[in-house]
């Protein structure tokens, strides 16, 4: 396994009475695609929010390289987030802006590039996700799959070191799922970045993942390459991968 770019160390998170993560530890290897799988509501998206500093844990530490995110001030977090891309489940594009304005926003705010340079970068990024023709469209004019790809473009336009994808293939048809999975793989190679993907779609995980981690009852119960996790002896992992109703997972 490559050196970790990000790390969760003994992290606990609770929302009110509900414990979401309990002494959860995870390493994200640099330059690879790590997929996090688990039941709905298991806390997978919480891990992404922790990695982006959008959420502070109740216990434990979250590291990006050697920097402990948990003790950063908001201004330091803002600086750190410019190195991380986040593609949200429903894209979360700003609906008062066009697709082009959405994608160019981080460049306008964080760089001193000229308008021409920004336009060229944005067009190039939109081309790489197959959406160059939507530059002037409003988000409401795009389909679900196009919205997700526009969200990808906004997440990667600043060439981040780490890209976080929250359920990128949820709610789209199998062809678009294939397209999105392919896009994630291609973007990772183009940017030479690390990716963490939350997904329930096993086919797409097998297609793109270098490493898989399974989250269950607040902790990582399996972590390794796709083959290692598929061959895991853990009955919970096996039940999840087979999609079976019969097994130790309480329904």
């Amino acid at each position, binding site marked *: 396994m490559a050196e970790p770019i990000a790390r969760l160390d003994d992290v606990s998170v609770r929302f009110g009475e509900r414990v979401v993560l309990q002494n959860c530890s995870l390493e994200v290897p640099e330059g690879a695609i790590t997929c996090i799988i688990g039941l709905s509501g298991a806390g997978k998206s919480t891990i992404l*929010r922790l990695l982006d500093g959008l959420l502070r844990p109740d216990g434990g530490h979250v590291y990006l390289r050697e920097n402990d995110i948990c003790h950063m001030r908001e201004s330091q977090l*803002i600086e750190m987030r410019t190195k991380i891309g*986040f593609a949200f489940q429903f894209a979360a594009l*700003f*609906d008062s802006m066009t697709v082009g304005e959405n994608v160019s926003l981080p460049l306008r705010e964080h760089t001193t590039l000229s308008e021409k340079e920004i336009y060229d970068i944005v067009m190039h990024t939109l081309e790489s996700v197959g959406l160059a023709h939507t530059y002037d469209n409003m988000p409401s004019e795009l389909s679900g799959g196009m919205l997700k790809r526009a969200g990808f473009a906004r997440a990667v336009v600043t060439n981040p070191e780490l890209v976080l994808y929250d359920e990128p293939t949820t709610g789209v048809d199998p062809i678009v799922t294939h397209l999105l999975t392919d896009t994630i793989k291609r973007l990772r190679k183009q940017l030479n970045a690390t990716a963490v993907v939350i997904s329930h779609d096993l086919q797409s995980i097998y297609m793109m993942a270098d490493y898989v981690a399974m989250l269950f009852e607040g902790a990582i119960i399996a972590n390794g390459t796709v083959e290692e996790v598929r061959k895991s002896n853990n009955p919970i992992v096996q039940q999840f991968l087979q999609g079976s109703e019969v097994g130790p997972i309480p329904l």
Partner: protein
Amino acid sequence: MAQVLREVEESPTAQAVERVSVGVLASVGRKVSDILEYAGGLTLLMWETVKTIFRLRIRFAETLNQCYLLGYQSLIIVLLTSLFTGMVFSLESAVQAVQYGFGSFVGGIVSYTVVRELGPMLSAVVVAGRACAAIAAELGSMEVTEQIEALKSLGLAPVRFLVVPRLLALMIMLPLLTIFADVIGVYGGQWIAHAQAHIGTQDFMASARQTVGFEDVVKGLFKAIVFAIVIVMIGSYQGLTTKGGAAGVGKSATSAVVTCIILIFILNFIMSYFLYAGA
């Protein structure tokens, strides 16, 4: 004796009373905790907003856009409200005043009330109904669709991006709207005083000039600035703390307007008390 006390304590009536008492105490405790949480959250948001403004991290184009959306688009309703309020105030006072022989004071009474109280407060209430609800609904909708988190994830502070432009815009526009409201309220009153009580325009205006000073106008505008801060901060706080999808957005917008209007009335009294003490 101890036996009797134990029996009383264990009786179903005593246990029911205890349950109700604990329930009431818990409910009061929750309410107090909610109010403190609201006040604390609002104070933090204001502090963050003030820091951002003093660092001059201002988005001027967006501020101008908000001047149009929150201010200019409220102009017609502010003018109509103020016109008819000035007219009805004059209608109620002018005829009576002439009957009792002090018709020459009507201009002063109408303009004094409009400039000091009705202009700033009615403009604020009307703008609160429109702008505060709009701010809470827009920011609330952004919150539930993860757009606020998206802003943060792009390394952009929601306060700088969303709250500061709205605050500066309304701090500019609400005093301007108040000036328009003052003028049209006074002219509406003058027109009705002339039409219903035959009070001459010159008499009305002379009385108004004699009664209302420049200081009164400035104090009215000061009130408008305070109301602008209340409208934007309450709307923004409610919006940014929205939870629970579309229903949550509706609840935030309603709650923002109600809270805002109540605060405007309370603050108007407090400011009048201190600004016009002894006047």
